């Protein structure tokens, strides 16, 4: 009697209302406002080159953020993301310069990311380490490996077929769509389906919402956590390999500090610090916001020295706005 699905609840129903009710609507508004401002105030923002530059740069951050988001939904965090991106790209590059063929080298990079993530998961689930501590350890270790393996020198001379993964633009109706963007969309769809439609995804939200109750429901929460950190490592690996392909060189310092961009994208995208809430779409919008901001500050002529200060301010304001909106909606 009392149960009706959203769609058939009577009176004043519209697509618009559904849109406004969406979790991601608040962050979407912020992005929309930023883009509108930049279109009106600069001539250079709304050009296909600039837009695709933004989206290409978003690609690896967003892919890594999809994994990070899962860790944060379980009430954890993955600080090792930036180092893992660097290490995975480096692993692929080192295989390539030893004449390993491209698919195997790429796989090597991805497995490296997965392995670090798996270790994170083991330490957190079985070793009962707080995620912050465990991933801080691997953050340093993975970065240390980058320096140790290279002696501090960048790895150069990567084959063109590998660099194409990050540099090739597919011509579509006269404009070149960057290949990394397509990879990003692929992983976006996979991650979103994974979280929303699979048993694993349900378990991830449940662990973040209430770990005790989930365990008492007969779910192996350790396995959920190991999976989440393995995926976070793997997706950071994907991002790292793509980024390395784009740059054409694997520096031991690559992606240094990127974990903060990735974590910022997740939080700006509306994922709750308290766990149990967050969507892949929100994270994608969050990642785009961060990149548009960076790009916009350059285009509007703000000094690079002020970049971080403005970024910090926007992160805080965006999250405040989103929470305010959610609180009012729940009233």
């Amino acid at each position, binding site marked *: 009697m009392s149960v009706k699905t959203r769609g058939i609840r009577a009176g004043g129903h519209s697509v618009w209302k559904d849109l406004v009710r969406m979790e991601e609507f608040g962050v979407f508004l912020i992005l929309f406002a930023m883009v509108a401002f930049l279109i009106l105030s600069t001539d250079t923002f709304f050009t296909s080159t600039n837009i695709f530059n933004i989206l290409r740069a978003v690609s690896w951050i967003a892919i890594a953020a999809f994994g990070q988001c899962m860790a944060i939904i379980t009430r954890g965090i993955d600080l090792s993301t930036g180092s893992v991106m660097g290490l995975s790209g480096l692993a692929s590059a080192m295989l390539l310069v030893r004449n390993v063929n491209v698919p195997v080298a790429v796989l090597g990079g991805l497995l490296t990311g997965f392995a670090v993530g798996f270790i994170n998961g083991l330490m957190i689930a079985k070793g009962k380490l707080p995620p912050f501590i465990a991933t801080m350890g691997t953050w340093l270790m993975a970065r240390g490996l980058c320096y140790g393996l290279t002696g501090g020198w960048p790895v150069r001379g990567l084959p063109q077929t590998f660099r194409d993964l990050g540099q090739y633009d597919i011509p579509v109706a006269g404009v070149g769509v960057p290949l990394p963007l397509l990879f990003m969309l692929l992983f976006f769809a996979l991650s979103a389906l994974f979280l929303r439609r*699979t048993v694993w995804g*349900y378990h991830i939200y449940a662990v973040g919402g*209430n770990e005790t*109750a989930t365990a008492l*429901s*007969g*779910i192996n929460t350790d396995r959920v956590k190991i999976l989440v950190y393995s995926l976070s490592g793997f997706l950071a690996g994907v991002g790292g390999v793509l980024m390395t392909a784009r740059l054409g060189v694997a520096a031991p310092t690559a992606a240094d500090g990127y974990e903060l961009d990735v974590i910022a994208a997740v939080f700006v995208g509306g994922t709750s610090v308290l766990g149990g809430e967050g969507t892949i779409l929100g994270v994608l919008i969050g990642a785009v916001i961060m990149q548009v901001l960076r790009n916009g500050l350059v285009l509007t002529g703000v000094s690079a020295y002020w970049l971080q200060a403005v970024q910090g301010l926007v992160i805080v304001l965006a999250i405040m706005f989103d929470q305010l909106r959610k609180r009012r909606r729940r009233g």
Partner: protein
Amino acid sequence: MSEQELILRMEGISKAFPGVQALDSVDLKVAAGEVVALVGENGAGKSTLMKILCGAYRKDDGRIFLNSHETEIESPLHAQRSGIAIIYQEFNLTPNQSAAANIFLACEPRERGLGRFLNFVDRRRMEREAQEHLSRVGARVHAAALIRDLSVAQQQMVEVAKALAVDARIIIMDEPTSALGEDEVETLFGIIGTLKEQGIAIIFITHRLEEVFRIADRVVVLRDGRRVGGMSISEATPEEVIHLMVGRELTDMFHKEEAEIGSPLMEVQGLSRHGAVRDVSFTLRRGEILGFAGLVGAGRTETARLLFGVDRQDAGEIRIDGKLVRINSPVDAVEAGLGFVPEDRGIQGLVLKLPVQENIALPTLDEHASAGWVDRRSLRDTAQEYVGKLNIRTPHLRQKVMFLSGGNQQKVVLAKWLASQPRVLIMDEPTRGIDVGAKAEVHALMSQLAQEGMGIIMISSELPEILGMSDRVLVMAEGRVVAILDQGDATQDKIMAYASGEINNNVVNVTSTGAKV
């Protein structure tokens, strides 16, 4: 004070939330040194009224007089300064600090001289004064003791002392007995008596009627946001109060319907865990409700946790249908056909942020999935089926569980286990903190499950519930099974005697009655 004077008068209090009129012109009067019991089903408006009084909510309409002065209570701090203190069901204590630090939280005495300037806490004075407040409530708690080392009852005493420290004249207690064992309840009632003598007014929210008649001077009944009755306790009868609460007659509140008791379903032998459970053995039959009685801390919850594999057992054997099963984790337990309705649904039973349908499906997700993909239609249908069967009141299946009332939340926990079709259901305090109507529904459901051949273990601290619902009563004390009584044999007095160690079945030559082991 010869003439009882009104310390609090609330007149025509109204409060609306989107979609509901939570309070509709409610009056409440409280005199100094008076204990007023505020009763009503969940959602009747008790908590809303109290939250307005202690500044957590603002009223839409109505007036509040404190000592005959009209007062607009603007914030919790303002309420506290006006002498109103509230003790919530979940205590507001910081576990890693001392009792003294908690009692003086936000008003710590400062050192004199330079220390005052630097904001140094005068720990000696704080602990000394805290000790005085603690002894005023008759608590045997050391002021320097850490909260995490105290029992629930002791923590509650710290809460009361905290209220005294800010010089509260009105203390609101929100279901203060729900977390206490029978003997601790007695201590609390003693404290309430002491507070009364000091002229402090107490507003007592409870679901247990026998408590109302034990300690209240007056009872005020709310239903659907309206005050439906208020009377002196000497003029009230339990039947009348229940009738006012639910608006209908409720006879035979605790009654298990006849079910055919079948063959042994679960046999437990020598279950032990160091320091908590000692050599527990019993047999549960098909269609049987086995009540677990005992004081808080007697090892009942610990036994349930061992059975369900939450904690590791040191020794013991569990057989289901005669077959030995190894239960080392809840995953094993679910596989063996067990279900567990834990004692605290918010912390252990539900993912409050998730919708009703996903909570119901949580233990059985695999059955709604092929190759890892969840079939959302099948999940929704199952949830829908149990929402209907259990009469769970929710606007829709996607409603987050946190927005449901306590009784409906508990039904979601039940639904989740029924959906997994267990053969043995362990229920730890299945009706704690839910209203009489929902309680009756839960009991009816338990009867029905027993009739269908399920075996049920029911832990309860409410003796009437134990006596009314159980086919046999297992009494625990100090981690051991001290008695297993048949329904006809069990009485309230007998159970209490076993539970408190006054009778000890297992030991011959008991030296004297009343000797604690």
